[in-house]
């Protein structure tokens, strides 16, 4: 009986300390994606300045980058609220992952090989963080 009580106390303690950690990890993942996305944007602007990418191409890919950023803001808001109330962030995680996949698909259509490489590099670094967000989705 005493062992059960001790086990229950340990489980509750783990749950209490584990939950905030989940939101902390999600927040760090979102922050890392934001910085990677900014570097992708830097690469695109540099490609336009160097004349290897047109303003039209920039406008096309920017639409998808903005979509990821807007979904990132929505996800951040949900994480902020969930870290206090424990509310679900599932819908926001789904929407964010969907926006990121669309950006990846769009980046494959970039005509200039060097720019495609630059964007791919940035998105690959963001993917590590996106994997953390996806793991949250799979774990729930």
């Amino acid at each position, binding site marked *: 009986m005493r062992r059960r009580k001790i086990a229950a106390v340990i489980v509750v303690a783990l749950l209490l300390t584990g939950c*905030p950690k989940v*939101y*902390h990890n999600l*927040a*760090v993942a*979102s*922050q*890392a*994606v*934001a*910085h*990677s*996305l*900014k*570097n992708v*944007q*830097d*690469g695109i*602007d*540099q*490609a336009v300045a*160097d*004349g*290897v990418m047109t303003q039209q191409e920039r406008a096309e890919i*920017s*639409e998808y*980058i*903005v979509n990821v*950023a*807007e979904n*990132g*803001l929505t996800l*951040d808001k949900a*994480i*902020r609220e969930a*870290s206090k109330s424990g509310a679900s962030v599932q819908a926001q995680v789904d929407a964010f992952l969907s926006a990121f996949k669309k950006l990846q698909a769009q980046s494959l259509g970039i005509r200039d090989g*060097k720019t495609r*490489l*630059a964007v791919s*590099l*940035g998105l690959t*670094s963001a993917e*590590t*963080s996106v994997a953390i967000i996806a793991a949250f989705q799979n774990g729930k």
Partner: protein
Amino acid sequence: MDADTLKLAVFAEELAVLAAKTISDLSKVIRDSHTKDVAEILDDADTTYNGIIARAKI
């Protein structure tokens, strides 16, 4: 070196700088995360996302 080769060389160098900056940024994010709470981390993420949206409209 012709103009196209020079343009490619310049871009390759910029790509290398961008790669180094990306790795450096991510290292900093992870390193700083140990001393920051969720709200502080999300404030920085929001600022970065808003900056991206504002710049895309230029």
